[in-house]
């Protein structure tokens, strides 16, 4: 039976069919739907971990104990999980261990576009790269087999266009699989230097055997074609090559670490000119060149962004390989479409916080989540965003190093991000006696990735009840003396709390608590505008609310978008905005 599945849904199906016992991960676009889909199969235990490092360690534990494990994360999550990854390559596994790294070329939903294929080579683990949903499903089973056969973790590296594109997938039935027996073996699992050295040698031996396997694995294969042009490619780029260069000979690599040197040499000898087509870094290209083979890649193709068949056609045309395209341009003389950037939702209860921080002229070190949207004009309530947890640590750095700025600096972080990696940053601020003020914008979910639960929501991934972390108690336990909870819809209270926090000695935390508007779907009567009173000052526009517009010097509120949060009522200086819940 065939079904139309996204790459992510296909990976979940593959895990179910291949007898995965445990799955863990942290939400992150474009990886999130893998575990969301897997959680529908009650036969597989699946969970959200507070961060990717924890998730991978959970997987390493299960795998060493003999169970098959699937761990998922976005590309930058692997940075967090890198510590266990590098040493798990030494210990190896027992049950298969598959780490899905979902990379985001083009940065659709990410802060960078790092190429995680380098991680596989760096950490010395095997790597598979599927090109569509069917391969994504098949490579779960293959990866787990490779992991067990070569006693090594396997990275399944996907990109946004594999993760979020749907294609036809042949479904199979799950194969019953026993948990492998565990035996205590300190020389294999206790990575003290003496044993680490042994496993270091073993790893080279395992990689050498894997390399040999890569020469004949069915996922590395040649698509015969014209001998004038040969293309080596992998992942989604394979699809673009088949469209842009339909006649070319192609060496498609499914196992891309280690690369099969003999197969590449054989293919290179069959073709007159050899190209390598890969998004982002010249990962394959450099290794092919190290084999002493002449190859063209990044000389004609970009190292940034996504490819598509049109881009390949134009680049190969510019290189004289393909005829030049038609010059027709439909859009000549058309006006430029103004951008439509993502914005905080109408009714987002945390919108007013950014308005307040901006109006107080504070320096705000932000973090990863919806609230990065609070940094864009006209809200402009955030100065920086680097990675999960960095907001608190960066504010501490400013506090310790830059007098004059420190008095006007606060950190902003979300609840899920705080639990991911803000806790240790706050602990550091306490330990080193910082004066920082931290706002935890607690919307009771992991919102940006589509509302996943976390340790403070009271629910787990499989739909069960879970203990709910008390953020106030947690901050107190870390040593923060000043912890205040405010309602972010009360803008005066937020401002007062920030002033108190800034004036306080020692670190202080303000927990602004209101659930994500999409979670509650709470809708109160919409705000109305009294046109007689409105003087067209446009203060309300500074809230960056999609429901508010100004035409003919009068504000208007879209009655279908407005959910009656009344932030604009609080911002309005003339009293023209009339709250729907006035008196409620």
């Amino acid at each position: 039976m065939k079904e139309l599945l996204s790459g992510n849904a296909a990976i979940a199906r593959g895990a179910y069919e291949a007898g995965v016992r445990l799955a863990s991960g942290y939400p992150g676009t474009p990886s999130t739907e893998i575990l969301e889909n897997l959680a529908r199969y009650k036969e597989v235990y699946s969970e959200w971990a507070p961060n990717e490092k924890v998730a991978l360690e959970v997987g390493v534990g299960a795998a060493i104990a003999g169970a098959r494990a699937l761990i998922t994360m976005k590309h930058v999550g692997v940075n967090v999980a890198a510590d266990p990854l590098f040493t798990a390559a030494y210990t190896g596994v027992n049950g298969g261990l598959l780490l899905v790294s979902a990379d985001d070329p083009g940065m659709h939903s990410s802060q960078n576009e790092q190429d995680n294929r380098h991680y596989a080579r760096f950490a010395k683990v095997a790597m598979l790269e599927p090109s569509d949903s069917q391969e994504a499903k098949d490579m779960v089973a293959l990866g787990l087999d490779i992991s067990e056969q070569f006693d090594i973790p396997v990275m399944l590296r996907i990109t946004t266009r594999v993760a979020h594109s749907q294609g036809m997938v042949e479904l199979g039935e799950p194969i019953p699989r026993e948990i492998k027996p565990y035996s205590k073996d300190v020389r294999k699992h206790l990575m003290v230097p003496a044993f680490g050295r042994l496993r270091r040698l073993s790893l080279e031996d395992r990689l050498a055997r894997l390399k040999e396997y890569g020469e004949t694995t069915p996922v590395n294969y040649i698509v015969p074609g014209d001998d004038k042009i040969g293309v080596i490619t992998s992942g989604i780029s394979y699809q673009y090559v088949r469209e842009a260069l339909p006649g070319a000979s192609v060496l498609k690599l499914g196992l891309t670490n280690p690369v099969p040197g003999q197969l590449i040499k054989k293919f290179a000898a069959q073709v007159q000119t050899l190209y390598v087509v890969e998004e982002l870094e010249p990962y394959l290209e450099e290794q092919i060149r190290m084999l002493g083979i002449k190859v063209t890649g990044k000389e004609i193709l970009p190292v940034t962004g996504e490819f598509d068949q049109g881009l390949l056609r134009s680049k190969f045309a510019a290189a004289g390989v393909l005829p030049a395209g038609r010059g027709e341009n439909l859009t000549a003389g058309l006006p430029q479409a103004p951008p439509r950037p993502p914005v905080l939702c109408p009714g987002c209860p945390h919108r007013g916080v950014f308005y307040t921080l901006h109006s107080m002229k504070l320096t705000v070190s932000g973090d990863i989540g919806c609230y990065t949207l609070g940094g864009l004009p006209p809200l402009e309530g955030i100065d920086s965003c680097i990675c999960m947890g960095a907001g608190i640590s960066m504010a501490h750095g400013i506090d310790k190093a830059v007098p004059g700025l420190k008095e006007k600096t606060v950190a902003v972080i979300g609840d899920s991000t705080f639990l991911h990696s803000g806790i240790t940053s706050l602990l550091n601020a306490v330990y080193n006696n910082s004066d920082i003020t931290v706002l935890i914008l607690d919307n009771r979910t992991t919102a940006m990735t589509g509302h996943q639960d976390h340790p403070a929501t009271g629910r787990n991934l499989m739909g069960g009840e879970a203990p709910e972390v008390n953020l106030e108690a947690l901050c107190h336990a870390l040593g923060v003396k000043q912890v205040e909870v405010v309602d972010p819809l009360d803008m005066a209270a937020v401002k007062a709390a920030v002033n108190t926090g800034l004036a306080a000695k020692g670190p202080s935390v303000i927990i602004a608590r209101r659930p994500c508007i999409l979670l509650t779907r709470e809708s109160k009567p919409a705000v109305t505008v009294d046109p007689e009173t409105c003087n067209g000052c446009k203060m309300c526009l500074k809230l960056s609310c999609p429901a508010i517009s100004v035409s003919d010097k009068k504000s208007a509120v879209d009655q279908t978008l407005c959910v009656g949060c009344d932030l604009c009522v609080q911002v309005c200086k003339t009293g023209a905005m009339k709250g729907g819940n006035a008196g409620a």
Partner: protein
Amino acid sequence: MLKPINVLMVGVGGQGTILASKVLAAVAMKMGYDIKVSEIHGMAQRGGSVVTQIRLGEKVYSPVISEGEADVILAFEQLEALRWLSCLKPGGTVIINSQQISPVPVLAGAAEYPGDITGKIKERVADVVVLDALQAALDCGNAKAANVVLLGAMAQKLPVDEQTWRDALASIVPPRLLEINNAAFTTGFNSLVPGVAS
């Protein structure tokens, strides 16, 4: 060999492009086409510009549609039709919902919503259909059915019989909303009959 068809559905987060793409995918599966659908999740969904790319044919490799490759652009909003027009194949069709949704830079007065978008597109593209899908959907009883009105309009442009569309629609929308959606489909489908609308 079935001729490959590329459909680009563009709109604003929350307009129902995903459901529309599911119906088209179900049509393609019933016809025995190979199919690929590509969409962007995550940050772009927060009121941003959204695009769903659907490709059907004997064998589909790439899941995305490059510039100049779309047979049909189904625009759920005027500005998005303008934004994605460069993807249209010479001789392709543009179906535009006349609804306008101002992006925040326009609301904030930092940019202007371009005037007469449909007129400008008509100057360049021979086959343009403009309809008020939102009003049509409201007339059918639910503003959310605007996506299905647009699908009905597109159905006239693809080599698929009406019953296959109806069956696909029934397989995707919840039974309690089928009646409204069938009516919405009919409105869109009939809007292209000469003399009924332009």
